[in-house]
């Protein structure tokens, strides 16, 4: 190991590994240096200059995030020069920023606002540049609002879109005073290859990128006595919501969340985990059918590997980037949309409700789900299957608006019919979860035995590695699956679209031969979704993942096919997986989009 470097920060001597930045060294030492453009998920840009520090003996200040420690450095983070400069920089940012804080969606959760408050920027000495600029707001997307007047040009969104997602919908355009964050030819986000994943929102320090919120629409529906408002909650919401309401990162608040939703006035509180379980049966059956066609019938048209289709960000990505591979997608709709289609059919029938009067709301860790619910493909119930999609953040806002003291709530269970779930449904919220859930069920379906992993925990597909691979050898299958005997089922899991790209390119190049691949648009899977509480970081996502797996382990049932409500829906309504009815309601097909 290389020799440690000795430096001094505010007269404290510390030793750090070579290559450590001043910012990292300071954080290790307990010295806080403010930052804006810096983000743990992203490469260092060093462009906001808020983190400047003084290195004794140097006339110029250095950006702490971008300057590596050097032996003997004597660093001051709060000298006269640093304080004055930092204040100036904050003032400059504010002069270019539409600081209309009380009317801003991010009011109270804005890093620039916090800095202004910390440094008590009380005056407006500099000239307000906002009126001189032709700032525009792009509200065309059903998921994302981009307000250039709030942008501080830290480029976190651009780096997110490029480094984490490989989408490059956003770029830096022009130079000088005209420099801005733009899409191709400044088209609306809705008209470019944006996948609506919302990672840019999660990484934006200000209100320049926010979700399009449907809070008022949902309040209106709840208030409307003629409406029956049914709500579903995605698996990842229960491990994120608490963060907005005073809990530690990765706290499990499932029961309180249900209680809060009931208090808000929803007529029925159901669980997307139920349709996650349903997805496993449909998708698992689909996979086995494809395998059979490939291995037994040697059908040249069968598309393998089969790719999951739960993540709407991933769906839009493949539509744009690999349209020729759309047939590899499972035809299953996402659990949200399966739920939506069933809410206005199965649920309406069981409760004897007029589907037209049902307002179907979903709480998602995701902004792409807003776009998904808006898709023309998603009207198979005869109505719009999901009417409103709220993010975890929007739900937290509603809970606060309603004056609910969340921490004091008791736990409540989901309503019946589509509220029961298994641990397999819960882990959909983490990267690798769909794969694990599918393997738990498929392996048992084929062999009659549990997957050969301790406690059903399929560890190789868990964790935050960008691309994970696993293979399971099928031995002694049941008679009807004899053709699978000895088959090594090869699986891959990718999260973050940049990793999806890696997997797709390795398939394209013929390097990888998989049978089944789980793709999730967001880093960490849904728990790191674009609709989850801000901030996000690898550490936070790891904690949420721990919570998800703890939730799974605590469930009495942990395999989707054991879910009694799943058994019931097949008996009462759908008949069997991949039946005509499920084809109509639960499956769909997507169409190519332009890459450029």
């Amino acid at each position: 190991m290389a020799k440690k470097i000795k430096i001094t920060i505010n007269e404290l001597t510390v030793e750090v590994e070579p290559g450590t930045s001043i910012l990292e060294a300071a954080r290790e030492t307990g010295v806080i240096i403010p930052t804006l453009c810096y983000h743990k998920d992203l490469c260092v840009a060093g462009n906001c200059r808020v983190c400047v520090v003084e290195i004794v003996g140097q006339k110029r200040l250095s950006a702490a995030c971008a300057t590596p420690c050097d032996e003997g450095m004597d660093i001051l983070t709060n000298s006269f020069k640093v304080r004055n400069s930092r204040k100036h920089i904050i003032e400059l940012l504010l002069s270019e920023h539409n600081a209309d804080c009380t009317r801003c969606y991010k009011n109270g959760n804005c890093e620039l606002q916090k800095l202004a408050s910390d440094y008590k920027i009380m005056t407006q000495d500099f000239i307000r540049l906002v009126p001189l600029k032709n700032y525009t707001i792009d509200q065309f997307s059903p998921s994302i609002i981009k307000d250039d007047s709030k942008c501080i040009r830290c480029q976190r969104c651009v780096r997110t879109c490029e480094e984490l997602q490989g989408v490059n919908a956003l770029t830096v355009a022009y130079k000088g005073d005209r420099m801005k964050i733009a899409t191709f030819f400044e088209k609306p986000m809705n008209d470019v290859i944006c996948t609506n994943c919302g990672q840019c929102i999660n990484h934006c320090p200000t209100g320049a990128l926010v979700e399009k919120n449907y809070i008022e629409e949902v309040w209106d529906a709840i208030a409307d006595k003629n409406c029956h408002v049914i709500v579903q909650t995605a698996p990842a919401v229960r491990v994120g919501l608490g963060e907005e309401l005073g809990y530690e990162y990765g706290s499990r608040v499932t029961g309180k969340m249900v209680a809060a939703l009931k208090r808000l006035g929803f007529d029925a509180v159901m669980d997307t985990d139920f349709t996650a379980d349903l997805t496993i049966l449909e998708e698992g059956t689909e996979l086995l059918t494809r395998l059979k066609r490939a291995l037994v019938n040697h059908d040249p048209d069968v598309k393998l590997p089969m790719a999951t289709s739960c993540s709407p960000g991933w769906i839009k990505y493949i539509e744009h980037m690999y349209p020729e591979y759309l047939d590899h997608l499972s035809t299953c709709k996402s659990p949200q949309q399966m739920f939506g289609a069933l809410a206005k059919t199965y649920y309406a029938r069981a409760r004897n409700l007029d589907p037209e009067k049902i307002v179907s709301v979903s709480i998602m860790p995701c902004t792409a789900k807003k776009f998904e619910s808006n898709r023309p493909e998603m009207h198979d119930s005869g109505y719009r299957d999901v009417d409103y999609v709220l993010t975890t953040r929007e739900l937290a806002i509603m809970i606060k608006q309603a004056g609910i003291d969340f921490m004091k709530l008791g736990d409540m269970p989901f309503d019946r019919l589509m509220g029961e779930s298994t641990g397999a449904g819960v882990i959909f919220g983490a990267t690798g979860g769909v794969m694990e859930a599918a393997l738990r069920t498929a392996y048992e379906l084929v062999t009659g035995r549990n997957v050969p992993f301790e406690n059903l925990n399929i560890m190789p597909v868990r964790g935050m590695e960008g691309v994970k691979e696993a293979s399971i050898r099928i031995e002694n299958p049941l008679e009807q699956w004899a053709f699978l005997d000895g088959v090594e089922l090869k699986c891959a899991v990718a999260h973050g679209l940049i990793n999806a790209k890696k997997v797709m390119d390795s398939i394209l190049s013929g390097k990888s031969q998989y049978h089944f691949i789980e793709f999730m648009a967001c880093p960490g899977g849904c728990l790191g979704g674009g609709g989850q509480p801000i901030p996000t970081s690898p550490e936070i996502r790891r904690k949420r993942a721990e919570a998800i797996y703890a939730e799974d382990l605590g469930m009495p049932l942990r395999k989707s096919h054991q879910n009694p409500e799943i058994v019931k829906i097949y008996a009462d309504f759908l008949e069997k997986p991949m039946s005509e009815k499920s084809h109509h309601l639960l499956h769909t097909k997507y169409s190519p989009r332009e890459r450029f």
Partner: protein
Amino acid sequence: MSSNYQLKRVDFIFKDEKDWKEILKNNINRPPQELINELISSELKGRGGAGFPTGLKWKLTAEVDDMTKYVICNADEGEPGTFKDREILSKVPFKVLTSMAVCGHVIGSKEGYIYLRGEYFFLQPELNKAICEFEQYCQEINFDFRIRIFMGSGAYICGEETALFESMEGKRGEPRNKPPFPSNFGYMGKPTVINNVETLAHTYTIFEFGAKRFYDLGVQYSRGSKLFSVSGDTPKPGIYELELGMSLEDFVDEFGDGDTKAVQVGGASGFLVPRKRFGETTIGFQGKLTGISLPTGGSMMLFNSSRSMYNVLDNYLEFFREESCGQCTPCRVGCQQLLNGIKAVKRGEKNALYLDKLLRLTETMQYTAKCGLGQSVANSFSSIVENFREEMIY
């Protein structure tokens, strides 16, 4: 106060280049260390404006172990008031090419690029012809070095060396964080020597006549001669090679129109010197000389008493506002604030004390901007506002 040094015309740079083949052949057969030592002993400093010792630059890059290295000639001459590099490339291109090749020999590089600013597109055909002839000769003497022109496309900031690399890599010309420096991590992440056109022409002089001839010119810390681009209110605008260390007074005696009010030394990113300070100002790199010594890329703009310094500053600030790459806060927003600020003061919308706030802002820009552009806006701003405050207000 008057300088001991008279204005001395020198004729090295544009002296004929007919011996370039011989000089190339001789020097690529000398050991690299010897060449580096010669450059170091000449005390040649970069002529682009920053003044980094050229010998040291070559040495640092030579010491890095890498199969691929690059030699880049920075011909993105964009500083307002500077036009010497164009003249060098059109009159004595072989000097530049020879020096690039010798540099390649010294550091172990086989590839050179000339980053030519888009405005000088018209130089390209002739320069390409010269390169062709040059490469042909290299082949003849079995010396493996190729040179290509890379055209810029209209961006002042690309003169900043790391922005220039970014631009050559097909990206926006945004300066990088430093460290790492080009000697380790330059074009395509490879060790790179990047020298200004004029610097390379001077190295040719040194290779031709030896370090001593060069060193004997100029003054301590500012050795050798330098090309000056003279423009503005002068009866003889043009390019002149002069010894470093001259006093501004002597310069104005020679080039002024008799009514010189101020001289902008070093272009928009340089300093404005008012008449009362001509005597105490010398032109060269910072050293222990008496009086103020101003480093320069060679731009000398003269203003006579008919000129409003407010308009001059306004013009500079508009230039910086547009040519800032826009990535870092102090430079992007700072330039806008300075320009709008002086306008507001001029219009009476802000009182005169606001100029002091702006002066403090330029200090912050100097301390915190990511690259030389943002850092040097303070130079012209403070020197103009401090010396011609009344012109800013009324």
